[in-house]
């Protein structure tokens, strides 16, 4: 594989951009693999990469029914942060954040991770106390968090409505300076290219249609391109976990919901950090191309339609304008939908299943992108060793039956309330 570098780019510029290798091969499926990962999103591809890189397993296939990165990897708002209140969550996501920091070099692919800060606004004293509580939980666990005064927030984002009469007056905020955004497609492509270089077969247009079983044990998968045997099979299809698990006769504590996002026409830099809110479910950032990327509430009912409720977009727009009034004249150029795997406590599942040799990585709700490297790391550990990585141990499938849920929002088992 030809390495990417400024020098290589310069040379290519002088030779008409000829001579670049394919970023990944287009292999035919083999008869069998040591590990098959179902799902060629960021999580599945990073799992394959770490299986090969960390655990030395090379006989791996990633099966993708469409094109890699075409699911939620390519549909999210690209926010990366680790500032969750619950310890198992912030430990996992901070492990991810550490990997994000070195990802471009690790993969030799610029994923444009840009730690420009992830700011939560507080709109009342009680919001500020909740933010402080979260910040304190993070700081006591060695994770960066910083409370900002009203003035500091204003300095950071001069276009915020700081008036006392604002519908959501701004009392201050909490920022994680290591947080930021990354280029979502590049994450899938970077992992695919790096995994491919280690011998992983990334097989697109290969849809899994069933599992081959032997006495309650999974021995491989059926696909539209034939049967493929496998030592272990890892489901990694967040958004579609239910239907895939159903092929093995399983029901999951997961429901699919639509989450929409939208982007404005590109404009010159106006927002330099990621803006979120303690009270509002609205998030705002500006992409490197200049578009303001916005998101809001999920659609709050089960759907795979990838077609959302206009009311959700309208609400997110109204909230964004309430925070940053100058956004009002900007125009939405495109909105899109992802199908989220809404788990019943709001936290992911990285776990074995009641069927031998079958594993699940899913239930990421609307927050999976930022976990990509840690998710892959931990899932690779599980698929390589059969045992949970310490960071993933709390995210076991049986935690719901045991009562050991990890409920960041404290709203219980109804995903539409999250």
């Amino acid at each position: 594989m030809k390495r990417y570098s400024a020098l290589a780019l310069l040379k290519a510029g002088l030779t008409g951009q000829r001579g670049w290798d394919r970023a990944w091969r287009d292999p035919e499926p083999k008869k069998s693999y040591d590990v098959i990962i179902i799902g060629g999103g960021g999580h599945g591809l990073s799992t394959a990469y770490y299986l090969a890189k960390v655990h030395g397993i090379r006989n791996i296939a990633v099966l993708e029914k469409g094109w890699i990165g075409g699911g939620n990897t390519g549909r999210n708002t690209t926010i990366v942060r680790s500032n969750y209140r619950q310890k198992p969550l912030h430990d996992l996501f901070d492990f991810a954040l550490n990997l994000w920091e070195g990802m471009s070099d690790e993969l030799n692919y610029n994923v444009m991770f840009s730690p420009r800060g992830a700011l939560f606004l507080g709109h009342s004293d009680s919001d500020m106390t909740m933010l402080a509580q979260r910040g304190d939980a993070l700081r006591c666990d060695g994770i960066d968090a910083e409370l900002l005064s009203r003035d500091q927030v204003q300095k950071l984002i001069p276009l915020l409505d700081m008036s006392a009469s604002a519908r959501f007056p701004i009392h201050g905020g909490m920022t994680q300076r290591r947080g930021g955004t990354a280029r979502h497609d590049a994450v899938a492509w970077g992992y695919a290219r790096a995994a491919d270089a280690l011998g992983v077969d990334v097989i697109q247009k290969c849809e899994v249609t069933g599992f081959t079983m032997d006495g309650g044990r999974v021995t491989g998968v059926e696909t539209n391109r034939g049967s493929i045997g496998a030592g272990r099979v890892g489901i990694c299809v967040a958004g579609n976990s239910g239907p895939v698990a159903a092929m093995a006769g399983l029901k999951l504590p997961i429901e699919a919901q639509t989450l929409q996002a939208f982007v404005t026409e590109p404009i010159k830099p106006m927002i330099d950090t990621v803006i979120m809110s303690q009270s509002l479910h609205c998030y705002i950032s500006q992409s490197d191309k200049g578009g303001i990327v916005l998101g809001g509430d999920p659609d709050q009912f089960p759907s795979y339609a990838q077609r959302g409720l206009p009311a959700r977009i309208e609400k997110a727009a109204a909230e964004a304008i309430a925070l940053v009034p100058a956004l009002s004249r900007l125009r939405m150029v495109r909105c899109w939908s992802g199908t989220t795997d809404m788990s019943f406590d709001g936290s992911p599942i990285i776990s074995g299943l009641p069927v031998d040799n079958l594993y699940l990585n899913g239930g990421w709700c609307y927050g999976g992108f930022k976990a990509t490297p840690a998710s892959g790391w931990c899932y690779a550990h599980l698929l390589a060793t059969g045992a949970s990585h310490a960071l993933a141990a709390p995210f076991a499938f049986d935690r719901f039956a045991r009562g050991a849920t990890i409920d960041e929002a404290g709203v219980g088992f109804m995903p539409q309330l999250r």
Partner: protein
Amino acid sequence: MMQIDCPYCGPRAQVEFAYERTLDSIVTLDMPAEEAVSRLYARANPRGLDDELWRHSFGCRQWLVLRRHRVSHAIVSITEYAP
């Protein structure tokens, strides 16, 4: 945004309604604890039809059963909930 043909109010905008859960995840009070817990946390979650409990929260406030397709959003049937 779907249009839901409420048996009481006629066709109404989806924003008046709230999804509650699937019919098979209703936990009755007389159910053994283990069954109750397993129902609460298990969903078929199909890419297809399922029976869902909705409430016309901002209309007649009644509970309705929608047999609904989760990809096309076609509503095959809608009836008042009856246990």
